[in-house]
């Protein structure tokens, strides 16, 4: 992780920003209504969008703002950009500011590329001379030289996006405020965006990036701010932010593990699972577990009859109802022993957590010795837990893979081929 260039003064200082939207309950849209009911006060309810947000962004830092939909991240960006005013608090920016909330804002479809590029540059704060000077760079980057005389309405959507993106990144600003909408589009375009982000970061620009994609937070950001319902939930290391984001997103204590309700249970009832839960490497019962650490799934069982060599098994199902893993005590402890009526036992299944970050539910069964089909108890969806992790690569598990790259000489390659 590259460190931001150290500097004395921060590029951005935000000091206890607070912002509320006043939403009128019944909106009077006309002067007539206002004139007919001059005394009727329109009632408003205020919707707090941001509460007491404070942070600093160092010069050259890539700073992420993450949060769920409606958490206030876009509002915060608009406040930083000066599009919304804040109710309380102060913002200082040291350097030239450029904002990309959306691509191609203010493009006029009836005008040719040149007029649009120049106008957009002036909108972004360039002087007309600067805007005209950068026109060539913009049109070359967008690879649209042969279409520059064409009106924008005759552009394909791909050409349109290319021009808009090119316009956005050719602004010579010290501080860039970027909304996640920039990172949409097809794969090759996204890669182009990311290349530009890397370049900007390496050039030492200060970038504030709003997203809900934890992958890009980890890839780019030096630090990140997590917003939850307009409040500052966490500020700091992007990996930590990504973890907390997933926790918040999936619910902190999903379906709290605990005593099991006697419904939808199968088996002959000679033993019952009283409680089941997941715990982390420190033995704490948790609802969310970090990928890569040791985790344990535990079931507390009470025997209602004398049972010889019972076997417990657990299935982990992801939210596609796919069985990701099955473990049974019969494999390691086929002769688990004799249990008397009223006795209790803990069945624990520990493993290195290679599960992909998402939600999992569990299915417990208790069976008599033998095939494992002679059930004493069966609980669907005993509890669920969430696995958090910085990456979501798309697999159902993330195996700890050792990757190596070795250069092979041409001769050796031939030998291999032969």
């Amino acid at each position, binding site marked *: 992780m590259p460190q931001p260039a150290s500097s*004395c*003064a*921060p*590029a951005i*200082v935000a*000091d*206890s920003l607070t912002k509320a*939207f006043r939403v009128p309950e019944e909106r*009077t*849209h*006309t*002067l*007539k209504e*206002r004139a007919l009911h001059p005394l009727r006060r329109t009632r408003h309810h205020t919707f707090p969008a941001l509460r007491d947000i404070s942070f600093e962004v160092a010069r050259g830092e890539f700073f992420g703002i993450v949060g769920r939909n409606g958490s206030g991240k876009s509002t915060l960006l*608009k*406040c*930083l*950009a*000066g*599009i*919304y*005013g*804040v109710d*309380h*608090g*102060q*913002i*200082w*920016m*040291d*350097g030239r*500011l450029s*904002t990309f*909330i*959306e691509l191609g*804002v*203010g493009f*006029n479809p*009836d*005008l040719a590329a040149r*007029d649009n590029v*120049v*106008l957009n540059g*002036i*909108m*972004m*704060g360039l*002087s*007309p001379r600067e805007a005209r000077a950068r026109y060539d760079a913009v049109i070359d980057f967008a690879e649209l030289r042969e279409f520059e005389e064409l009106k924008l309405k005759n552009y394909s959507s791909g050409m349109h996006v290319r021009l808009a993106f090119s316009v956005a990144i050719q602004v010579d600003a010290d501080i860039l405020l970027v909304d996640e909408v920039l990172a949409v589009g097809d794969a090759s375009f996204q890669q182009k965006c990311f290349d530009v982000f890397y370049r900007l970061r390496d050039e030492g620009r200060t970038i504030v990036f709003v997203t809900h994609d934890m992958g890009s937070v980890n890839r780019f950001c030096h630090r990140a701010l997590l917003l939850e319902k307009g409040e500052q939930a966490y500020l700091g290391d992007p990996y930590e932010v990504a973890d907390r984001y997933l926790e918040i997103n999936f619910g902190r204590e999903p379906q709290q593990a605990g005593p099991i309700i006697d419904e939808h249970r199968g088996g002959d009832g000679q033993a019952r699972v009283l409680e089941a839960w997941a715990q982390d490497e420190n033995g704490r019962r948790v609802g969310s577990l970090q990928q890569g650490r040791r985790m344990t799934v535990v079931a507390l069982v009470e025997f209602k009859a004398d049972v010889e060599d019972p076997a417990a098994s657990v299935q982990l199902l992801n939210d596609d109802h796919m069985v990701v893993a099955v473990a049974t005590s019969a494999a390691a402890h086929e002769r688990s022993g004799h249990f008397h009526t009223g006795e209790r036992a803990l069945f624990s299944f520990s493993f290195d957590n290679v599960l992909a970050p998402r939600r999992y539910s569990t299915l417990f069964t208790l069976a008599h010795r033998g095939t494992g089909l002679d059930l004493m108890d069966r609980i669907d969806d005993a509890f669920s837990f969430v696995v958090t992790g910085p990456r979501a690569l798309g697999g159902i598990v993330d195996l700890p893979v050792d990757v190596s790259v070795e250069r092979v000489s041409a001769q050796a390659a031939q030998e291999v081929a032969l």
Partner: protein
Amino acid sequence: MSYQVAELETSAYGSSLGHPIRGPRALSDDWSRFWHLTYNIARNEFKLKFFGSILGYLWQVMRPLLLFGVLYVFFVVIGHVGKGGKPGETAYGVQLLGSIVLFTFFSEATTGAVRSVVDRENLVRKIQFPRLVIPMSVCLLSFFNLVMNLIVVLIFALISGIQPMLSWIELPLILTLLIVLSTGVAMLLSAMFVSFRDIQPIWDVLTQVLFYSSPVIIPVETVRDKLLHEPLLWHIYLLNPLVTIFQQFRHAMVTHAALSAGQTLGSWADLLAPLGIVAAIFLLGFWVFNRSAPHVAENL
């Protein structure tokens, strides 16, 4: 309270914090940016009109000319307005066309401004820029059209045998007054339309009223004679600052036979009244717009 906190913070960091972000406002500290934005938006719109259709510029000029033609046929040829042989009715045709062109500017700038902020919602919500740019660019676009139309008036005047006069140098003053009035109304309407959507039909009607109650068709001299025994109505008539502006245009630009603004009002000192009204409308418009500017992005 928060202001004091801010001051403490500033002194704690020293002066190296850079510039504060104050949120959206009507104006910006950077006047050149304000001007470039206004100019370029207006220029692009003008270009679109100019090159947007085959006739382009012709259409722009046709509008006042057509109105002039219709009014001339119905009021002058058929209705015999302006043919009474009164001193104010010399070169009535030029007076009529000139007034139509001035009024076209006023009505274009103001009716164009009404929806302008709402129609440019996309810009307002996504880019930080001085909000006043929007109605101002509408006014500037109308001004470009006004210049075009005045050229036509000049040609028409010279054809009609009007001799160039020294008093033509008053034109910038007259236009300034008209522009200040129009921008004031434009600011007021565009800010109000955000909350009150019936401003548009109301203003459409009011524009019609102003058209007939300004000295466009009926010369001031005729109105004064008819209202000789109705001083109240006469004073209400004079409250409309367009009367002063148009009348001085007729006097200074077309014929000295027409009453000057001072003669119309009584004395030159009375000019302070319409000037005061224009200034008041401008200040009111700016005040309303300035007050709504910080929140307009949220209220759209």
